[in-house]
Structures are given as structure tokens and as C-alpha cells.
């Protein structure tokens, strides 16, 4: 039982023993000593917000508009067919 306990403790300590020197070798985080204007960043690091915002709002407007038009068109065609059938039924009922 004691052997098993010792074995488990050693097993737990091994990764820590390997990890500590690695952490000790890590350089400390660099302090910022200057501000860089966003215009001086390379183009791939500059990401303007406006096109993303415009794209989001345009998509919302287009999606809602397309859906309203789609439902209105479907409703219109069903209504048209209903009217046609109803008048046909009335006519056939009279004759």
C-alpha cells in the first residue's frame, strides 16, 4: 500500500519536474514602450469595423425583406387560385 502511494506521488511529480525548468526559461512578457497608430499596421492586421457592420445590417434587411416578399407572393397565388376555384364551383352549381 505504501509502495503504491509512493508510486502515485512520483507519477504525479514527474510532469511537474519537467514543466518547472521549461517555465523558468520562458521570457517575461514584454512591456509596451510605444504606441503604434493603426495606419502603420500592415494591411492584413488592419480590420475596419464599418464594412462588417454594414454587411450585418444589410443581410438583416435583405433576409427580412426577401421573406416578407416570399410569403406575400405565396399568399397571393393561393388566394388567386382560391378565388378561381370558388367562382368555378359557383358556376358549376348553377348549371
Amino acid at each position, binding site marked *: 500500500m505504501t509502495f503504491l502511494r509512493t508510486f502515485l506521488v512520483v507519477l504525479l511529480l514527474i510532469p511537474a519536474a519537467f514543466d518547472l525548468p521549461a517555465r523558468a526559461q520562458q521570457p517575461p512578457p514584454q512591456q509596451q514602450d510605444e504606441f503604434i497608430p493603426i495606419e502603420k499596421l500592415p494591411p492584413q492586421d488592419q*480590420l475596419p*469595423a*464599418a464594412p*462588417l*457592420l454594414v*454587411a*450585418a*445590417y444589410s*443581410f*438583416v434587411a435583405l*433576409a*427580412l425583406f426577401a*421573406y*416578407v416578399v416570399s*410569403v*406575400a407572393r*405565396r*399568399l397571393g397565388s*393561393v*388566394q388567386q*387560385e*382560391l378565388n378561381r*376555384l*370558388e367562382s*368555378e*364551383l359557383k358556376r*358549376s352549381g348553377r348549371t
Partner: protein
Amino acid sequence: MPKWFTPAVVICGLMFAVAPILIAEAPYESTMGLVQKIFYVHLPSAWMFLLAAITCGVASVRYLFRGNPRQDRIAWSAAELAVLFGAITLVTGPLWARKAWGTWWQWDVRLTSSLMGWMVAVAYLLLRKYGGPGSDKLAAGLALFGMANVPFVYISVNYWRTIHPTTNVVPTLPTSFGVPLWFSAVTFLLLFVLLLRMRIRLEEQRTRLDALYLAMDEHR
């Protein structure tokens, strides 16, 4: 259409005209700046997406147990709205994330479960369109999974480590951010009700059309 429909359309139109003014006047968020304004359409559309999934699920349960065709019409209409508002949520979210998080998409629990819920709604519609006879009951069963996913989508951010903001953000919003958000949410809710009513009307008219065709066949 019911009497309240036209005045509600006018009110909704006016609210959609006023909402951009409130959103434009809202302050910029300190770390995200301009792109955070996507929040005012992303969050209300996400709420409507979840509301549509719940509506579809509840109507499906009632259809399965009571067999009321009106509930089936409500479920079908709500599923379509779940696809619409889900698509808006899933498109506006990555547009915001690209700037705020530096990535379009992350396979974290909130985003993945939302996508899953949207795919369930799409599957519902495909099943109704191409499933043939009996697909109504099968689709109603599928809608239950869509509804069961809703609480998971909502609380997931509080239990799993994710870069998506938690549900604590909205209750702690300052008034300057809260007013445009809640105004936008009420506008989206009104739009949801109007679209649902319009879509149910379409199903009602289709049912009438089927009944007329049957009557004509009997007449012949």
C-alpha cells in the same frame, strides 16, 4: 387577416424606422468600438430564433397529443421563422466575431448548439416538403429535439468555457446600451408575431384550397 394586423404593421414599420436612430446614438463599447453595434440585431434575432423553436416545439407536442391541425399549421409556420431568424443570428454573429474575437467561427458549445438548432429547423422544413404522407408526425417529433436544444443553447455559456459572452451581460447593461437593445427586441418581437400570423394565414388558405379541390372532385 385580423383587425389588429394593419395597425400592428404600421407600428412595426415606425419602430424599424426609429431603431437605427437609437442604435446610432448608443455609445461605443470600450474594447469593441463600432462593430459592437451588431449586437442590437444579433441578440434580438437570436431571441426570436429560440422563441420560434419553442413555439414550433409546443405546437408540435399539442399536435402529436391532440391531433389539432391548427397546431400543425402553427408549428410549420414557426419552423420557417426559426430558419429565418436562425440564419440572421448565424450570419451576424461571425461578422461581429471576426472583429471582436479575430475569428469568424469557433466550434464552442454556444455556436455549435445554435447551428444544430438551426439545422433541426431546416430538417423540419425539408421533411415537410419532401417527406410525403406521415411526415407531419415525424416532423413534429423532430421539433421536440429543436425545442429541447433551446435551454442548452441559452445556459451553455454559463457552464462551459467559451469566448461567447455569458447571459449576465444583458441584465447588467447600462441604460445607454439597454434602451436601444430592448427597443430593438420589442421591434423584432412584433415583427415575429406579424410574420407568424401571415405565415399561418398562408397555411389556412392552403387548407381551404385542398378542401375546395376535394369538394370539386366529389362534385364530378
